[in-house]
């Protein structure tokens, strides 16, 4: 017991010497929104919108897909910061986000009218893999930024927080490839643009434990 008291006293002494900056979730969330907005805006400004964007937005499937992507980008980004502090998952609204990813896939599949044949043709066309690389490249800055933000906190739900961060980042990549890239076929989008979102979210789930450990 005495040893514990000594130990506690040493922590108190340490606290007197070092007063860390308070991790304010509200201001961090605002910073995330600012970063995401500036990043997406910059990439679109530099790369330009796809040539047929005016036609694409008139398609219901494309509009819903883009709206869902934006929701995933911002909500998952903010949720990842909210899970950078000790807390239980409980009834957090963030648990809905993985289901939204499934909804996104269903929208592309059903509203985009993707047939099995078209899927097989797309899967067997590896030259389209540049789309996936584009999604991953578009996700890297966001993933780095979110991981950096989270590493300054003390997350206790590491897998969940890691998957949310990579979900937001991969949704960024997906959004950018769809708004800047020229892919026409929804089968190609489903195979090469949407699947990296699932894969990167899984990567976050698997490596969150290692990346965010403190």
């Amino acid at each position: 017991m005495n040893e514990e008291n000594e130990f506690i006293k040493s922590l108190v002494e340490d606290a007197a010497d070092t007063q860390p900056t308070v991790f304010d979730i509200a201001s961090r969330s605002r910073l995330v929104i600012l970063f995401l907005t500036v990043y997406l805006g910059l990439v679109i400004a530099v790369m330009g919108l796809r040539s047929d964007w005016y036609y694409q937005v008139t398609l219901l499937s494309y509009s819903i897909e883009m709206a869902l992507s934006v929701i995933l980008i911002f909500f998952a980004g903010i949720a990842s910061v909210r899970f950078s502090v000790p807390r239980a998952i409980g009834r957090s609204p963030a648990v809905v986000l993985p289901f939204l990813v499934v909804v996104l896939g269903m929208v592309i599949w059903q509203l985009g009218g993707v047939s099995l044949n078209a899927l097989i043709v797309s899967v067997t066309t590896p030259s389209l893999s540049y789309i996936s690389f584009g999604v991953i490249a578009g996700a890297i800055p966001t993933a780095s930024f979110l991981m950096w933000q989270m590493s300054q906190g003390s997350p206790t739900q590491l897998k969940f927080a890691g998957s949310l961060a990579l979900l937001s980042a991969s949704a960024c990549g997906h959004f950018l490839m769809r708004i800047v890239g020229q892919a026409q076929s929804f089968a190609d989008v489903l195979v090469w643009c949407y699947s990296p979102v699932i894969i990167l979210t899984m990567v976050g789930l698997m490596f969150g434990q290692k990346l965010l450990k403190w």
Partner: protein
Amino acid sequence: MSLSKINDKATLLGEAEAHQAMVLAQNGDQSHYQKLLILVESMARGYLSHRLQNASDLDDLTQEILISVHNARHTFDLKKPIFPWLYAIFNYRFQDYLRAYYRTRRNITQDMNDSDERDLATDPHLEWEYRNLGQKLLSYLVPQQRRIIEMLYVNGNSAQEVSTALNISVSNVRTTAHRAIKRIRSKVNTQHE
């Protein structure tokens, strides 16, 4: 306020008082921070005593929890209740402990026909192996940690003797030793992976 004047046996606090203590602690009030840590220690022991059989693991994990609370104190939102925040840390550290426990023990198998009867006192090769292992483990540490671990565990000095020899407080010796062991454990675990 001098720490020596602080009453070690601070009365245990309820949720509201603990919250207030954290608010004051974040403003640099040492006595309230100490009271809070004493409460955390008691809560952690209560939480872990149902889950752990081994007393030494319980002590280690309680210290881990205290360090975690200390390191994460800047993430506590003063508008939120404190107990869920604390229990989230308890859970996290306990699961981390379980993960390490099963990772290090799951591959341990003992062949009944393969008993190792070598004796450290009579087997120079075994003694050499142990010496090498000790040197390797010590090489993971920074010089100050290495010096303290050597004095405590190789030379058999007491914490008080180390404190006098190095001109640092006893609590500092214990904290450094604890961090050194944690560092070795984490390095060894990383290598096992």
